[in-house]
Each structure stands twice: as structure tokens, then as C-alpha cells.
């Protein structure tokens, strides 16, 4: 298998567009996601996150533009791209009546390089019995099975498509814990799409905010937090680089500004950075 987490970008798009009849899901998207760590792909529903990941897996074909997953164009060489990635869909794609162990064996039959011992070990560590039928497990456990299968591929890139959406807070944390451990090993890069911003903050290394199929913001989590401040409504903004205003708690209007000056306003949370750029995207639209 070629391509590891430390080689070049894991994902590159150039003017990537995906159109479904009248709907434009991804619009002229040009983005580069470097290798290593966890990149959070954030944005509201319909922002194009899932479509982007589905194009990476070869489930959808771009209407226009280019896409490379670890140097491979999945539209032209889907098999080579799939060799390099593991995928966790939004809703676990499991056979309800089939035991977990049979899922792992099926994956081995489908992909001879599948590391069944590694996947099994992950599940046993989480207390998920291989003998359990998938349909009898909770949503969190089913998501963990999907993640274990993706990890069992031993692919250098994992694409996690909104796996947290239907999980309870505890299950989210457990899921993110496993993903984070995998990324810390250094052999795996993870692109995690989500609109649950608060819980991403603790595990993500980079942010990529999409809105209406376009990139609204991209940076490391540390820079995002260090380079932005929040001003309460009514504070003077003259000379400041204001990103956008948005309603804060209690309907007070907040302003997100680009600044490293700690004397200005207060420190922003990651959620506020993301919301600020989403508001900017909406204004631009």
C-alpha cells in the first residue's frame, strides 16, 4: 500500500463541483488537507461535507474539477483510492441480523489485507462482544463497529462522515476517544465531518469550515483559537478585522474579529469561530 499519513496532503481538490440536477452540493471547492492528525470538516446540513467525502470514496463522481485522495483520483482509479482509505458512513451500514464477528470475517473476505485481529481487539477493548448481533447493539456501539472496520483496513486515511450525528454525548466521547487514539499513533490521518462543534474541539487538529459547498475557513484549531476574539454587541470595532456578527447566548449580538490582541474582547471558543465564519458565508450568499 502506498501513501502514508506523513506523505504530502491526504486530500486535495481543485475547483471541485458536484451538481445534482438543480442542486449544487459542492461548488468550485479548492482545498488541501495535510497529512496527520484529525481534520474536522464542519458546516451546516447541506454544506457539502458528506458529498465531498462520498466523492473521495468513489460513491459519487465529480461534475467538474479534480479530486485526489493521497495522490489518487478516485473517479478514475477508485480501487487504488479505496486501498488508501477507510470510511465510516453517517448511518452504520451493518447487517442487523449478523453477529459482529461475521461482519469482520466478511470484511476479510472482501479485502484480504483487512486486519481482523486489530478490529476485533478494538471492539473487545470497548466491551462489544463479537457474538452480538449488530441490530441488538446501541447506536454508539454500531458506530464503534463501523470505526473498528475502518481501522481494520489499516488505511492511512480515515473518512468519518458525520458519525456523531445520532450518538448520545457519552457515545460521542467514546467514539472520538478511539478516533483520537488512532490519529495520535501517527500512521493514520482522519477527516471527520460533523456539525457537533463543541465535542470536536478537544480532538481536532485542524478545521475546515464549509458552507454552501464552498470553503469558508481553514486553519489549525490552535491558530483558530489564538487568532480570533469575540466582541459583545456595542463594543467599538473601528480598525478591527471583523469576520461577522452572529447571535450569541441570550440573543446578545456577538462579533467575531481576527486579532491576536488579548486586550480586545474575550477569547473565542471554537464553536464561535465556526459560527462566525458560517455567518460570513451566509452574508456572502
Amino acid at each position, binding site marked *: 500500500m502506498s501513501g502514508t499519513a506523513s506523505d504530502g496532503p491526504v486530500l486535495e481538490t481543485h475547483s471541485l463541483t458536484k451538481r445534482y440536477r438543480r442542486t449544487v452540493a459542492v461548488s468550485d471547492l479548492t482545498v488541501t488537507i495535510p497529512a496527520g492528525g484529525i481534520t474536522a470538516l464542519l458546516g451546516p446540513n447541506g454544506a457539502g461535507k458528506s458529498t465531498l467525502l462520498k466523492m473521495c470514496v468513489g460513491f459519487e463522481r465529480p461534475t467538474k474539477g479534480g479530486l485526489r485522495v493521497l495522490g489518487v483520483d478516485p473517479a478514475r482509479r477508485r480501487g487504488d483510492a479505496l486501498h488508501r482509505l477507510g*470510511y465510516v458512513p453517517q448511518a452504520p*451500514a451493518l447487517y442487523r441480523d449478523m453477529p459482529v464477528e461475521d461482519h469482520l*470475517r466478511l470484511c*476479510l*473476505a472482501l479485502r484480504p489485507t483487512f486486519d481482523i485481529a486489530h478490529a476485533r481487539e478494538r471492539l473487545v477493548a470497548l466491551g462489544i462482544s463479537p457474538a452480538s448481533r449488530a441490530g441488538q447493539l446501541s447506536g454508539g456501539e454500531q458506530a464503534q463497529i463501523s470505526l473498528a*472496520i475502518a481501522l481494520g483496513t489499516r488505511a492511512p486515511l480515515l473518512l468519518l462522515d458525520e458519525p456523531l450525528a445520532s450518538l448520545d454525548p457519552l457515545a460521542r466521547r467514546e467514539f472520538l476517544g478511539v478516533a483520537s487514539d488512532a490519529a495520535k499513533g501517527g500512521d493514520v490521518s482522519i477527516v471527520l465531518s460533523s456539525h457537533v462543534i463543541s465535542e470536536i474541539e478537544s480532538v481536532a487538529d485542524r478545521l475546515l469550515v464549509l458552507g454552501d459547498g464552498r470553503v469558508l475557513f481553514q486553519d489549525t484549531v490552535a491558530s483558530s483559537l489564538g487568532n480570533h476574539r469575540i466582541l459583545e454587541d456595542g463594543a467599538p470595532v473601528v480598525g478591527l478585522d471583523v469576520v461577522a456578527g452572529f447571535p450569541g447566548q441570550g440573543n446578545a449580538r456577538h462579533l467575531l474579529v481576527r486579532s491576536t490582541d488579548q486586550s480586545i474582547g474575550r477569547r473565542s471558543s471554537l464553536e464561535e469561530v465556526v459560527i462566525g465564519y458560517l455567518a460570513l458565508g451566509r452574508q456572502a450568499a
Partner: protein
Amino acid sequence: MTSLRAAMRPMRTELLGVAGVTALLLLAAAGVAVRLLAFDLPIACLDTESTSAICFGRQFDAQAYASFASKWSGLVGIFAIALPAVAGLILGIVAIAKELDQRTAVLAWSVDVSRRHWLAQRTLPLLAVIVVLGVVSAEVMKAMLGLQAPGIDLSQPIGFEALPYSGFGPMAAGMSAFGIAMVVGAVLGRLLPALLAAAALVVIANLLVSQGNERLMAGESLVAEYASVGAGRAIDFMLRTPDGRIVSWDEGFAEFGDPMTGELDPAVVQMARYVPIEIYPQVAARYALFHLLLGMAALTFAFAVVERRSP
């Protein structure tokens, strides 16, 4: 668990269902056979008009045998004829439509680096199952025919009506049903609509194959005395006049028939246009080939659709 078992595991319920129905068919056939053999009737006595001494007092048994055989071996026969096509239809739907409908194709298509590999891994064993069912179906039908008419020589063609249930016919029909179900499932991606649409298409395909074969058979027909038609298929009736002309029945009757008695001049010979039974092997091969080609074309199309569609 071998790789094959693992690959077949998602279809276990349907495969067990097919195995169960096949076992039921064999049990039913065995039951009919045991019941009929229990009559212990010599073949000569199955003719209820028989005057043989060994049949004396067994006419009632002969009638009971004939009644039971025509009812139950007929039912088992219908069951046997339908089995490969129905199993092909269900397994074809399960192979793709169920995976798409229940979104489990997402797992397979993201783990397996080749969709062709995924589809081949499940298609080839299912085709083997259909071959086995085709053989079982043909053998059960043969046994039922043998029980219905014990004196019949089943090593020889018994008539063109046997095309769908003898030799490779059932297997080929099962294959075409399987291919059609696969491609319909791949296109529609929904379980119930795919099942209904595929069932309708399988019926249409069977009618088209039969009609196509009938048309070709008509082109291979001969005209001969009706008495020589034998097990061949008569497709038209006519008369040969005393002066050697071949005319239609109506024309011949108007000229040589007696309207009062309805009888023909004894010098007029009844003729028939018929398909000779001697060409049965090539007609049967063509019938099976049509189904096989249809099935293979559908399978090829199914592979192409799977390769391109989203899960």
C-alpha cells in the same frame, strides 16, 4: 468460516429458505413416489381397460393410481418447474437490491476495493445454486412423469411441451430470472419495487423466449400424413386430395366431405404441418441458449450498473 461462507453470510436467510423449499420439493416428490409405489400395480394394469389376468380385480386400484398420480405428481411438477426461476428471482434480488435498500452496500463498497470482485464473489456461488436447482427440478419432473405414465421411455423426447421442464430448460430459465433480478435490483435499488418489476420481466422474458422459439420451430416444420406426426408438434391441419393436391381442411371438406354424415372421402388423407420430434435436441438447446444469453446479458448489465451507481 471460509471466505466463501463469509461472503454468503449476508444472504444466509434466503439461501436457507431456498434449501428448505428444495428439501420440501424432494420430500413431496418422495411422498408421491412412495404412495404410488405402494399400489404395487403391474404396468399393464395402469391401463384401466386392461383384460390381463394379473389385473383382474385391480381396476379400482388402477383408477385410484391414475387419479392420485395426475393430481399430486402434477402439483409436485408445477412446484419443480417454478423452483429454479423463483429461486433465481429471489436470489438475484437479494444479491444487489437488498444490499442497496438496506444500505449495507456502503460497507461492502467501501471495504472491498473492487465492486466487480464483490459482485462476482456473490454471483458465482448463487449461479452454482441455480444450476443445482435446475438439475433437481428436471430430475423431479422426470420422476413425476415416470410415475404418471410408468411405461413411457423418458430417455427419448416426449414432446415439445417438455422444453421448460426437461434437460437444461429449468436451469436456463433460473439463470435468466437471476440475471433479470440482478439488473433490475441494481437499477432500482429498492427491494419491493425491484422484486415486483423483476417478477413481471421474468414472466415477459419467458413468454418472449417461448414465442421466439415457437416461431423458429414453425420455420422448421414439415408437411406429412397426420399419422406420422407422433410426438412431434402439429401446428396446422390439412388434407391431401386423391389427385395429390394439399388443400386446407375447409377446402377439402367442401370438395370431398359429406355434409350429412360429416365424413370425408376415404381416398382423402389427413395431413399435418408439424415440427418433427427428431429435432427436439436442437430446439431444446436453442431454448436453453436463449435463456442463458438473456441471463448473461442481464448479468453483464448488472455488473456495469453496480460499477457506476452510488450505493
